[in-house]
């Protein structure tokens, strides 16, 4: 009975839980409650993915209204996979949250912090689960507004400007998406994505469709933070509270990638986007610049969190490469990288937060000799960093393997070369961190610091450990991603 309502529960539970958090009035109660909710959401996401993998696409009618009049939640291999990533990272980060939030957020605001966090989660899950284009916009606004608030909670005042910058850029992006959806609605009279997928290609290359495509694509690229739309990302990630940086880095841009896949492949269709329009060329060019430039800028950062943020700009480029190649192997690579990067970067930002928790700073100069003082945290940074480089047996290697293979299959060997060259730049910035922590002695007046609390370690290692586990056992991720990619390339769901 309840199993049939799982799709709506996935989104409704955190939405209802958010005001409950406000009512709880105490940070520690709110934390316990949020933890329970997040693990419940993970269970729901896992059940949904299982249903989709065994029984195919799920269509859920909200309130029993039949689509296209009513809102439909439609789950196929693609978004069920992304739901699992979002719910999974949120759940795994909850053990970490308590101490981290206690240090960074004022006591009277802590329960509100968890409430907003649940709203951000609602938005991200909603975007992913819904089968309605306008609904995507609504949830996008929910997640964005919540993210602005979360980022502004950072301990430094620059968090406010970072949040404001994100607000401006994010609003522009969301507006563009809304305008694009408006065009589609005007031309087709429907907002249901499955319905749009049938009607939009039938319209042909009319100016309205072209305009809709342009608005939506650019809007989504802003949310995805693909070069040159990435300017909001580094500051937002660097100055947000540790928990927020990690959560957004692991999920927000991933949902952006999902929106891009959904609009381009399902609504507009592969033929329109990649054959009529030169989206392959555009995406590949932007993505490769992102990979090289983002990574290169990361090399010259003096702060660990900013370094990781710019690394994200580069890693998002890899997603763009896979999507731009528009082949089953390429999209598989992109989806696997969505999953793997969520683990690696989530884990790395958690580790950076742990360092901030102990040292109060994440400057690379503050990291000198930290390999001995915080051995477990630094080991997590090293393993996560090796994943960013794409060293074998980390999951980063697996995604890059598929991306390079896809480039070869399309005969685009220069793309393969660029993807591999990006790894080298990643090596340079990871190397700087390793050198600072292991091969520079701690200053003699350094305060003695101990390892971070075990709960924070637990979350960090759950994600970092996952990134190694899924580097070795790729059956789960690759099989799911491949099926999702096949669904996407086949066109209409």
């Amino acid at each position, binding site marked *: 009975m309840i199993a049939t309502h799982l799709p709506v529960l996935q989104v409704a539970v955190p939405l209802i839980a958010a005001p409950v958090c406000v009512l709880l009035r105490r940070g520690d109660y709110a934390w316990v409650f949020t933890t329970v909710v997040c693990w419940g959401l993970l269970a729901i996401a896992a059940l949904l993915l299982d249903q989709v993998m065994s029984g195919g696409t799920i269509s859920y009618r909200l309130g029993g209204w039949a689509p296209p009049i009513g809102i439909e939640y439609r789950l196929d291999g693609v978004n069920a996979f992304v739901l699992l990533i979002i719910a999974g990272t949120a759940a795994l980060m909850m053990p970490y949250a308590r101490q981290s939030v206690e240090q960074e957020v004022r006591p009277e605001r802590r329960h509100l912090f968890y409430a907003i966090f649940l709203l951000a989660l609602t938005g991200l899950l909603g975007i992913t689960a819904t089968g309605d284009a306008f609904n995507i916009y609504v949830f996008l606004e929910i997640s964005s507004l919540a993210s602005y608030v979360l980022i502004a909670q950072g301990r430094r005042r620059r968090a406010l400007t970072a949040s404001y910058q994100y607000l401006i850029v994010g609003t522009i992006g969301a507006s563009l998406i809304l305008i694009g959806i408006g065009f589609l609605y005007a031309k087709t009279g429907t907002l249901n994505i499955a319905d749009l997928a049938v009607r939009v290609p039938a319209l042909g290359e009319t100016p309205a469709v072209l305009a809709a495509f342009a608005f939506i694509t650019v809007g989504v690229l802003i949310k995805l933070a693909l070069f040159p739309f990435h300017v909001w990302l580094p500051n937002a990630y660097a100055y947000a509270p540790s928990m927020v940086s990690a959560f957004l880095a692991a999920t927000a841009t991933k949902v952006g990638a999902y929106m891009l896949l959904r609009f381009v492949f399902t609504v507009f269709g592969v033929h329109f986007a990649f054959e009529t329009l030169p989206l392959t060329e555009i995406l590949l060019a932007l993505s490769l610049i992102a990979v090289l430039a983002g990574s290169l800028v990361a090399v010259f950062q003096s702060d660990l969190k900013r370094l990781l943020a710019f690394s994200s700009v580069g890693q998002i480029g890899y997603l763009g490469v896979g999507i731009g190649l528009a082949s089953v192997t390429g999209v598989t690579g992109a989806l696997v990288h969505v999953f793997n990067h969520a683990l690696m970067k989530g884990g790395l930002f958690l580790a950076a937060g742990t360092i901030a928790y102990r040292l109060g700073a994440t400057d690379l100069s503050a990291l000198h000799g930290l390999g001995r003082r915080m051995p477990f945290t630094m080991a997590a940074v090293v393993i996560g960093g*090796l994943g960013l*480089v*794409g*060293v*074998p*047996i980390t999951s980063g*290697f*697996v995604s890059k*393997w*598929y991306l*390079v*293979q896809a480039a*070869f*299959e399309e005969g685009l*060997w220069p793309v*393969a*070369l660029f993807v*591999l*060259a990006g*790894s*080298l730049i990643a*090596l340079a910035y990871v*190397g700087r961190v390793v*050198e600072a922590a*292991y*091969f*520079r*002695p701690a200053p003699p007046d350094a305060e003695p610091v101990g390892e971070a609390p075990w709960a924070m370690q637990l979350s960090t290692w759950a994600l970092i450990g996952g990134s190694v586990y899924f*580097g*070795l*056992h*790729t*059956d789960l991720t*690759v099989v799911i991603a491949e099926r999702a990619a096949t669904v996407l390339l086949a066109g209409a769901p």
Partner: protein
Amino acid sequence: MSHAAQILAALAVPVAGAFLIWATARRPVLQEAVSVVTAVALFGLVLSLAPAVAAGEAPRVALFDIVRGLPIAFALEPLGMLFALIASFLWIATTVYSIGYVRANDEGHRTRYYVCFAAALASAIGVAFAGNMFTLFLFYEALTLSTYPLVTHSGTEEARRAGRTYLGILLSTSIVLQLFAILWTWVEAGTLDFRMGGILAGAVSERTAAVLLVLYMFGIGKAALMPLHAWLPAAMVAPTPVSALLHAVAVVKAGVFTVLKVIVYIFGVDFLRGMAGSEWLIAVAAATIVIASLIALRQDDLKRRLAYSTVSQLSYVVLGGALATSAGVVGGAMHIATHAFGKITLFFCAGAIYTAAHKRLVSELDGIGYRMPVTMGAFAVGALGLIGLPPFAALWSKWYLVTGADDGSHIAVIAVLLGSSLLNALYFVPILVRAFFPATPMPVAVGRAEAPLPILAATLVAALGTAALFFYPQALLTLVQPLAGTP
């Protein structure tokens, strides 16, 4: 124990050893004991697999797939067996040596040092036993990463800079060129298994094969083909046992071993010989042999001189493969063994001199033979061995290489090989002359001051190995003969 279990155990032993070494961090003596026991156990396991390989068996074990259709797999074959035997045997000697060296020079970070050593050996065994190019690549990268902390061990600015060069060259060549070539091979040939006769013949056009050869040969940066050799002299900043085992044996031999694997099992000797656009490899290898020797002549730092000598000698092995004749490949494979024993002896001596006399420069070695006669005797053995004089091992490998060049009618190569022996003599013999016949007469009563016993013992074992391989080359030859292609 089945062969498959033995293979996995050989990989697991050094890993388990690394954990035990980490766990015994607070008890140094126990930690050293664990290191030695691990090394002995590894050699025992590897040795127990040797008879099967010598009898022509090819035990295999496949674990799980990392990429669909590409399992982590291990398969024993003569070349890998040879490499594993050398690396694991010399690890025992090096561990004993390390104990003396680390104590006498009061090195810090001992746990990291021994753990990384064990991890490097595990990686080297993985390279040796790899059943496909994919698995080999995994362990090849692991070997680079596990040896990096050993290069930067001292943590000085110089060491950090050397570490950057080391990682920079080894990882960038392996990721940008080698991995690129591997993926290309995978897409074109549909397999990465090592097969006698190669997997590329018939699968790719000759032009693609020629490009792939460039990518592989320069992508295997550990083979130190010029101009990608700079990481090896840079790595000399590491403690001497590291230079001895890793940068004269495990790491560099993993490089030339991979070169031979690629030539024999990916390209196939026949395919390579018939291929247009492979002659350059002979030329580059020959040029590396000569140029590196010339640079070695000018080095005053003993370890750097040895390093350039290694660069030169590694290209013997590459050359053997590049000749693509039966005798060439056999000679290359044998040279992996003979150079390993000769060069580790020399490095052991260099470390002994540094420990006992705190001298690093060749120009400081006047009369050192009187203070350290045993060490310098061993040095003479290693040096004469590498020059290729009897009764030492390298004679045999050079013999086969010359035969291989002759079979391929490469007269110039023969000239290079003979000329190089002369150059070897030019940069080794003056050291011996200085040591035993100093320009200024030594005071009559020079006290003997040899390095501590563990160092001395390990050095002697390595030197004896050089001689033993000359008198008993048959075992070596039997092992590598199947590479010649006669089934």
